[in-house]
């Protein structure tokens, strides 16, 4: 191309200088670059005088293609070559291409022709992977007669489909996802991977993703159910779009929600407070527990406390005297997965068991010594007004009369007050 440009630069000014004596149009026609001569129409009539093509070689190992090379014919009569292909050495050979130049001695067969191939129905046509084909190349002369000398035959085999990537590994126990990783395929023809998944090792594998890039060797399968078991396979894709055999199946299980806590029980009761205990959960990444209370009259349960994983007991200090409540416990892990609730524990809160009896010396009040044991002192109210404080579980109100209404309220060690008792009327 450069040479013809330089030649043009030299000759054109000269030609223009002589324009008066030369036909400029003819000059341009002569100097214009010429393309290859069109191939002559091939004829049935053979030419026995043309020597056969020598040095035919087929190169194996290419992706869905077989390059062919041969030595250029020394005979000036040769105008080009006809290339035929067969699926076996014995033929039959079918025409695949014509090269209209004696020195055009290279041809890459990618199978873009209508001649028969081994694999039918291959997407995009062309040669398949790992197939062997046989070739012959025959010369033809300027009048289109093809050489009839016995042609040499060469065979070539296309590259096999890519091997699966090594060391495919699936990571289990991830919350609602599975991570896959593998080593990059060593074959530089590999351009990516296909990841597929099945619920059983021998089941149907559905394609999940096509990943582009030989060194992109991770995949995250998300939005999976808790405690789901899946099998994964990874196959390599080559530059010709060929998908190789998949790797062996790798099993993975997603993280399960924590187990429901067990052993929930009432460990202690005081007025207005229930203390619950349970067995520690087994999960190593437990974030904590949620203690849930359902009051007998309430429609919905309510949260009592959120507790750390180290906790194995909790006190609910917001129950009324003698109130019936039900408790459940839920475990929560570091990923926020929640267990089913534990078995329910139903309990009636402790009461004061306050009694008010009229005696000769006044009204004698008495209440549960076990309730009193949890208090620093007890406030005693008559008709809503405090009349005294007691440090034992009884009190005599000297001025009391039959029909008076009494209540007691325990005062805890920290000065706070337990819920008030029910009202007891002196009899």
């Amino acid at each position, binding site marked *: 191309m450069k040479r013809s440009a330089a030649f043009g630069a030299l000759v054109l000014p000269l030609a223009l200088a002589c324009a008066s004596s030369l036909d400029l149009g003819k000059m341009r026609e002569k100097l214009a670059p010429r393309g290859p001569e069109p191939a002559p129409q091939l004829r049935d009539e053979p030419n026995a005088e043309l020597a056969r093509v020598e040095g035919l070689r087929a190169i194996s190992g290419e992706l869905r293609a077989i390059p062919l090379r041969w030595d250029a014919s020394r005979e000036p009569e040769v105008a080009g070559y006809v290339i035929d292909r067969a699926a076996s050495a014995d033929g039959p050979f079918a025409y695949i291409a014509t090269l209209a130049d004696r020195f055009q001695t290279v041809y890459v067969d990618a199978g873009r022709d209508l001649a028969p191939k081994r694999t039918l129905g291959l997407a995009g046509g062309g040669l398949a992977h790992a197939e062997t084909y046989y070739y012959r190349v025959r010369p033809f002369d300027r009048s289109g007669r093809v050489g009839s000398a016995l042609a040499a035959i060469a065979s070539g085999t296309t590259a096999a489909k890519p091997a699966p990537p090594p060391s495919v590994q699936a990571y*289990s126990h991830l919350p609602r996802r599975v991570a896959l990783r593998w080593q990059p395929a060593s074959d530089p023809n590999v351009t990516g991977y296909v990841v597929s998944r099945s*619920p059983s090792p021998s089941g149907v594998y559905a394609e999940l993703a096509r990943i582009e890039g030989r060194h992109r060797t991770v995949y995250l399968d998300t939005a999976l*159910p*808790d*405690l789901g*078991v899946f099998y994964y396979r990874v196959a390599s894709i080559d530059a010709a779009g060929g998908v190789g055999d998949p790797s062996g199946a790798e099993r993975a*299980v997603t993280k399960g929600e924590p187990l*429901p806590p067990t052993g929930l029980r009432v460990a202690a009761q005081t007025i207005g407070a229930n203390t619950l205990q349970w067995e520690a959960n*087994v999960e190593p990444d437990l974030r904590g527990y949620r203690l849930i209370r359902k009051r007998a009259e309430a429609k919905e349960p309510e949260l009592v406390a959120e507790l750390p994983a180290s906790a194995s007991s909790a006190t609910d200090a917001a129950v009324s005297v003698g109130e019936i409540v039900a408790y459940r416990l839920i475990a929560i892990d570091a990923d926020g997965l929640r267990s089913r609730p534990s078995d329910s524990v139903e309990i009636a809160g402790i009461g004061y068991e306050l009694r008010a009896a009229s005696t000769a010396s006044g009204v004698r009040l008495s209440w549960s010594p076990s309730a009193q044991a949890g208090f620093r002192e007890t406030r005693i109210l008559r008709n809503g007004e405090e009349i005294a404080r007691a440090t034992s579980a009884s009190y005599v109100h000297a001025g009391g009369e039959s029909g008076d209404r009494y209540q007691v309220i325990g005062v805890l060690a920290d000065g706070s007050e337990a819920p008030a008792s029910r009202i007891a009327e002196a009899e």
Partner: protein
Amino acid sequence: MRARKRWLASACACSALACTTALERGEQVYQAGDRAEAIAVWEKIDSAELDYASAQGRIDAVAEERGQLIERYLQRGRYFEERGRLAEAVLDYRLALRIEPNDRTTLAHVQELSRRVAKGRAEGLALFRAAFARDDLAAARVHVSSLRVLDAFSPEVADCQRQLAEALATRIEASLARANDRLDAGRFREAESAFRAVLELDPQNVTARGNLAYIERLRTESAPAANATPDPTDPDVAPRPRVSTRPREFEIRAEGYFQNALGAEASGDPLQAIRYDLAAIDADASHAAARSHLAALRRALDAQVPGLLEAGRRHFQREDLQAALDQWELVLLIDPGNSEARDYSARAQKLLERLEEMRAAPPPSATAKP
């Protein structure tokens, strides 16, 4: 106009919902995977209703199916537990619990097994790391194998396994290369020692076993020439063997498998020996010794076939599909053409696949209820 269309659409939707019978609602819940809830829906159908008989039929069928599923998961859990595969056992027990959440006994057992898995894994990982740190790959390999049995799902164990595999591959590759160099040079004692070093790291390594068998054969064949004068410059060089060519790679591997078969038979595991013989024949179809050894083993074990078939049937009746499959696969090792075992295996395999498909489905609580 648009508002009217919307009204019509919502009216149609409402009427469709209203037209859904309790029987159909139960069926929808069942299709979503919640058998217990489906049964509860059907149980609410009054005996005066037209669908009552159909609902009762569905209740019976689904209750039976539910019970069967629970039992299959529990049996699978027991199967794995008996073999020390505790994490897999926990998984199957939990799948049973998913269907029957009120099974206190199984829940308590799962808690106990989970504690054992956690403890065993922590101890095993510590042992592995110590062995790996002191470069005792053979011991590290044993610890990783035990860990894989105990907890097949642990990412930490998987990482240890990968770490070990890389280290072993490098070490084994180097040893094999050294052994092959020595073998090529005729230094048989050194080659033998290098191949034995490979077996210490990977006791079933077929290349090492095959080459050791080859060296042994060379020794036997060159024994008559023992009086020949060795090269004084290298006392380890054995007399040139009369075996003209070294076996090809696939022949070495086949021989390695065959040697493993002999080893398995000697250690009282003839079924494993059959597996190795089959691998030998797969590697080299012309391995005559493996063929005749396989035939002899099969003849010797043939009398066990009826017992194995029956044992499989018993497991199958108890819904222990995995154990049943194991028995029938043993039958097929001994008698590959046994049609009974083939049919039974296919059936058990199909049921197991169904169980496995269900494992991949969202739990009933996660499915939308109609």
